[in-house]
């Protein structure tokens, strides 16, 4: 039941997107990546975003995270309209409120695991020590390894440690398990789950993998730039039970 798990008073809406569109222009051709998205994300929710390739998932996530601007529409986060925000405000927003995890880890190769986390905590307001963040993702033994000395799953966990170390209000993950085998993927998901539970971090995970939807509070299906369905997951499973 939609209203039983939350009431209008105790739910704080972290994100509210209204009528978002995004059009890419490539010469003569116009690509409509988003065709009017309305979305609300309450605090502490774990959302999985599903959809076929090219449906606009990454585009939506980038706009929510202040990495990109929509062609029209609004994104309200904590009372601020991100679309109207200037570069400085967006930077502040990303610095203090958002954590990103990307499919290809995107660690900085010239920095060790610890330093890859430190680079974010150094500019955040109330971060946890990089060592703590890495311990949380089970990498206490790998603090001084460079990315090239880590496996794919380890790299992705460093990327997660980097994203959570600042204690962000939202964690946006674009196919965090896309490049991982199922076993390693589960380890990574467990970490996300734990962060979501322990810190109450609103978490959005993009995936192609419908199995992962079983651990979500809500599953949003995207198709051709529109939200096709939103389902609430009545039977939320812990990550450790997943496999694919």
């Amino acid at each position: 039941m939609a209203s039983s798990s939350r009431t209008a008073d105790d739910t704080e809406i972290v994100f509210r997107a209204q009528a978002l569109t995004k059009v890419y222009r490539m010469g003569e051709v116009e690509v409509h990546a988003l065709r009017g998205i309305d979305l609300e994300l309450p605090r502490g929710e774990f959302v999985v975003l599903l959809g076929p390739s090219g449906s606009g998932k990454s585009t939506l996530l980038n706009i929510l995270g202040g990495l990109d601007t929509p062609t029209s529409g609004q994104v309200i986060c904590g009372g601020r309209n991100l679309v109207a925000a200037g570069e400085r405000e967006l930077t502040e927003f990303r610095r203090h409120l958002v954590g990103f995890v990307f499919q290809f880890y995107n660690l900085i190769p010239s920095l060790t695991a610890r330093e890859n986390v430190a680079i974010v905590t150094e500019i955040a307001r109330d971060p946890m020590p990089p060592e703590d963040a890495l311990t949380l993702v089970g990498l206490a033994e790998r603090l001084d390894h460079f990315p090239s000395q880590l496996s794919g799953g380890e790299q992705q966990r460093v990327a997660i440690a980097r994203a959570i170390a600042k204690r962000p209000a939202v964690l946006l993950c674009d196919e965090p398990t896309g490049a991982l085998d199922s076993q390693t993927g589960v380890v990574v998901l467990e970490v996300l789950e734990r962060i979501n539970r322990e810190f109450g971090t609103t978490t959005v995970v993009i995936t192609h993998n419908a199995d992962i939807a079983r651990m979500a509070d809500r599953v949003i299906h995207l198709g051709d730039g529109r939200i096709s369905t939103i389902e609430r997951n009545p039977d939320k499973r812990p990550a450790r039970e997943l496999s694919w």
Partner: protein
Amino acid sequence: MTALHRKVWRELWQLRSQALAIAVVIAGGVATLLMSLSTLEALQQTRRAFYRDYRFTEVFAELKRAPEELGAALAALPGVQQLETRVVAAARLEIPDFTDPATGLLISLPDGRNPELNRLFLRRGRLPAADRDREVVISESFAEAHHLQPGDGLAAVINGRRQRLTVTGIALSPEHVYQIKPGDLFPDAKRYGILWLNRSPLAAAYDMDGAFNSVVLTLARDAREGDVIAALDRLLAPYGGTGAIGRADQVSHSYLEAEFQQLETMARVFPTIFLGVAAFLLHVVLARLIATQREQIAILKAFGYSRFQVSLHYTQLVLLMTGLGLALGAVGGFWLGRVLSELYADFFRFPWLDYRLLPSHLALGSLITIGAALLGTFGALRQAYRLPPAEAMRPEPPARYRPTLVERLGLQRHLAQPSRMILRHLERRPVKSLLAILGIAFACGILMVGNFQQGAVRHMLAVQFDLAQRYDLAVTFTEPTSRRVLHELAALPGVQAVEPQRQAPVLLRHGHRTFRTGLQGLVRGGDLRRVLDEQFEVLDPPRQGLVLTDFLAELLAVQPGDTLSVEVLEGRRRRTSVVVEGLVREYVGVGAYMDIEALNRLLGEGPAVTGALLALDPEQRPAVVAALNRSPRVAGITDRLAAILSFDETMARTVLTFAFISTLLAGSIAFGVVYNSARIALSERSRELASLRVLGFSRAEISYILLGELALLTALGIPCGFLVGRGLCWYLTVGLRSDFYRVPLVLESSTYAFAAVVVMASALLSGWIVRRRLHRLDLVAVLKTRE
């Protein structure tokens, strides 16, 4: 240290070889800038102090002879602050253990004391005592050349009378910082010295009792030099005044000025080239780095680093490379400045030389260098600043290639696939390829400049001494003499030929332009002293009219066919008009030439000679010199061979020093450009090359694709470099043009060859280093990385 700073340092370390190559080029720019600025500053500072403390005068006048009473009238001229009269004479010198002819300029001192103007700086010993007629102070360079000490003796033949002199001191004068015998190409301290002695004995020896033949003066605060010179000339004309001059025409001063100008040119040209190339290299390296780090930039921005912080991060990398270059350059510049100042100290005799590296120069150098570095990398930094984070998450779109010009022309069937790849790659980045070619071209050009001077000077010597001045000895007489003397000279054993010389000081005037020079009489069909036309063909002096040095014609704005007014500055001081019949190509000095008969008619003095030119049997040369030395009529002897030898000797050291330095610097440019191009190409194409290896291409074949590109760039850069080098040399020669000499734009084929060889060697070296990297290419690692 923050993680971002660690990233800078680690990446600098990763780029170390490229960074070092760039730093060396920057260092070249900084070093040449600091070297020229600090040397210039040292010379100017020293000159200013020397001129001020030793009261260097502002106007100089020579005359035949005027009574001492006239001095008071001259001193009373408006605009004159202080004036001194003196006696100046040329003398032949006889130095123990030195048989070559030597000339001295004898200058009077007020008996027993230092003059008020153009005061002497006594390096050692003392001034002549008031009542000692035989005591003399000699110039430092002359003393050093002959190892003369206070207490040593020498003899001077003044006006035909031989006088024994004793050295009491060694001195320097602001009037003779540069000591060159009038008409010489180069200073020769062994054969030309300045001697100062008490006025009474000098006047007695030179028939100047109660008279003077030279005036020096300083100007009142707001006096106009031209007015004072004009007034002085009016008063001195009846006494054989040859025209007063200001500092600008004073030999020592104007040589210094010319040198300062050359240093300024150097301070402009070389640092510009070096820093331009460095800016280009920094651009290439940084642009590539930023392209490969698109995703890292996106990450930094996604996690809340501002655009400014991100671009600052890359700016720090640029500044570190630049700083390394600055540090190397500062040390190098300090050292080069020292070397250069020491070279200068041999030519320019100052009592002291305050050489130091001024903080302001260092600041200026840093500012210019950092400015150039930031200007060069501005585009790449802006790229990092602007890159939208969402955009940067996606890999760079595949580079767009298209068929090359060669292929569009339908020539591709002559090219194998790898060669097509080379051409396409070059054509895809036309600006970068062009700039790389330009960088190599400038390296080649600088190498040519380093060797150009040597070749040009050799050419000057060849023209001057093989074609024009072919005599062995030039003899000047104490006064115009009857032609009989020529027969006497010809009768000396060992003299093979004699030709007369007639010279008169004249003022040439064309419109409002004037020039003082010597009008020389030449023998038609003469063999020992000839003048050459533009094609270096011997030009016989016309029966009527005169011929002029081409540079003098430029100064006077006359062309063949124009008429000049000629005012003779001695004897009857005739004024006539003479037609310019032709131009003479001369690199040293400027002059006007006439048929000697026509000159005698013009002077109205009958067939007299002022000197003679001799061709000698080399065996008998010392005997001839000794005989001439005994002749009272001989005022001076110039030895042509000795002039060439001493020139070669002095020049060799200077030229070698410069050539060595410029080779080193230009080599570093060539290496920097080729090496960095190679490294960038390797980074851009390692995936492609690794794929080819996987497909079965051999190491040699992929080396060809990469190194062939560099070879092509180098091959295109060298001919462009020849043009650039010619242009640079031309610019230098234009800056060096003066009445004293013009350096011709003559580039020997060895100059071209040397530049090409050094560029190719640097290219080969960098190719070899890159090839070793290419051979170690880790196929798995390269193909695994996501681009």
